């Protein structure tokens, strides 16, 4: 079953610039895939359409068979709770501890304090941050900050996790570590879509790759075909 389906989706901005053109693809439940292409190829726009920061100009985006074009008002927020987002610059709240940052999606859902504590600590433990829960983001290394961002994205058990250049600021070792973390998420039922222009890293992960070029989906490479590309 497809968690996410893009059907001939186009996005044109008011100035006339075409960011996406007739893009169609599916993301299966528990699948991990990469979205790659040069800067300006449309990767970030595509992810923004998924978490409803923007809406397509044409075409249909279905999430769990729900047409996102028809999702408005309060349901935009409810949709975003089903999609975990990881940013290149982490977007952590500087004045809140690691624990509080990771707890945010659960606070939004109104979970009880004890339940929040249990879930946050479990995720932090899993991501190797068990001893850093009281630290402020500024007291963490870049890799730790990114792991906090991932912890925050997965703590709410989203159906889909989207990550926009999550390893852009990290050294290769840390980048590989973060990618391994992403690769472990589908085991828990979360589909993962990672936008990255780091082709070496993408190839090494041996996952499905969507290649965007000037807003067009020019290639959809299966993991087994990746070595030939």
């Amino acid at each position, binding site marked *: 079953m497809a968690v996410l389906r893009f059907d001939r989706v186009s996005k044109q901005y008011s100035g006339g610039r075409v960011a996406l053109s007739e893009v169609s693809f599916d993301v299966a439940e528990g699948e991990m895939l990469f979205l790659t292409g040069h800067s300006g190829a449309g990767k970030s726009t595509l992810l923004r359409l998924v978490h409803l920061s923007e809406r397509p100009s044409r075409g249909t985006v279905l999430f769990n068979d729900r047409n996102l074009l028809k999702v408005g008002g309060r349901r935009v927020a409810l949709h975003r709770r089903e999609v975990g987002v990881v940013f290149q610059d982490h977007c952590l709240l500087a004045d809140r501890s690691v624990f509080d940052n990771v707890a945010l999606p659960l606070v939004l859902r109104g979970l009880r304090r004890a339940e929040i504590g249990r879930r946050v600590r*479990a995720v932090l433990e899993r991501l190797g941050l068990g001893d850093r829960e009281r630290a402020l983001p500024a007291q963490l290394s870049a890799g730790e900050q990114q792991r906090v961002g991932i912890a925050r994205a997965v703590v709410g058990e989203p159906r889909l996790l989207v990550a926009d250049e999550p390893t852009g600021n990290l050294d290769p070792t840390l980048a590989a570590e973060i990618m391994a973390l992403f690769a472990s998420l589908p085991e828990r039922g979360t589909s993962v879509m990672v936008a990255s222009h780091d082709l070496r890293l993408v190839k090494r992960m041996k996952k499905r790759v969507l290649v965007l070029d000037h807003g067009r989906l020019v290639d959809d490479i299966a993991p087994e075909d990746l070595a030939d590309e």
Partner: protein
Amino acid sequence: MSDPRATVPLRPPSPLRTWIDHHGYSLVASLGRVFDRPWAALLTIAVMALSLALPLGLALVLSNLERLAGNVERSREITVFLREDVDDARAAALAGELRGNGAVASVRHVTPQEGLESLRADPALAGVIDAVGDENPLPHALVVTPAGDELALAGWLRELPPVELVQHDAQWRQRLDTWLRFGARVAWVLAALFGLGALLVVGNTVRLDIQSRREEIGVLQLLGATDGFIRRPFLYLGAWYGLGAGALAVALLAGAGAALAGPLAELAASYGSRFALAGIDLPWTLAVLAGSTALGWLGAGLVTGHFLRQTRPTGT
């Protein structure tokens, strides 16, 4: 070691429970933000308080004036002086006739002798009365308290044959009433203008707070915060400002009242009056606090609503 219970699917509590929890969280968090920046908060509260205190002060002055005018209005008798040739019997008969009139509440007959004694009781006039000698120039007088329309009654009394003069000071009372109505309208206009000012003050303060937290709000929105969740802390922040401003405005008015009460009581005593300045009472205090809190809430709501409309998903 991960906690196995954490893998149980997320099951949020009831929406009502969540709503109450979020309100509690926003209430406390917004109060925390007020104390985070005490001087900025105090300045906002002080400006709002002055905006509220000015029209409220005017309303209090008018309320006291109305009370004073009310005291004067209670003594709205019509004094009817009869012609010199009207004797005791005729005057008493006329008083009896008037008592039977539905437009008359009561009639007091003042004989020339009683009138003279009354004038003699006034130290300023006693000398003059003594100089007149034994002859009493005063006519019989009837002091009539109207039961209804006093103007119509005064006009009717003027037409009676034995009546020489009708003394009825309605005109200045009507003017006073007109001034009081005008003053009340001025107070309302000022209240509206200053209230708008207070609304803008709290709105601008909350707008600055939103700007300083724009990034945080953006992150919260991406994580699935509803408009209500984003809006609530700012609404409570506005309400705290409003409540603080209302309390300060009441305190300012109480202070001003205390400063004026003594000299005013002395002034009133010099005119033989026991008039005392009425301050802001409990119902008024509660109304001011509720109104100012609502004003703060409204100002914050308008600004936050505008901000949230700007952050909707763009394009179609």
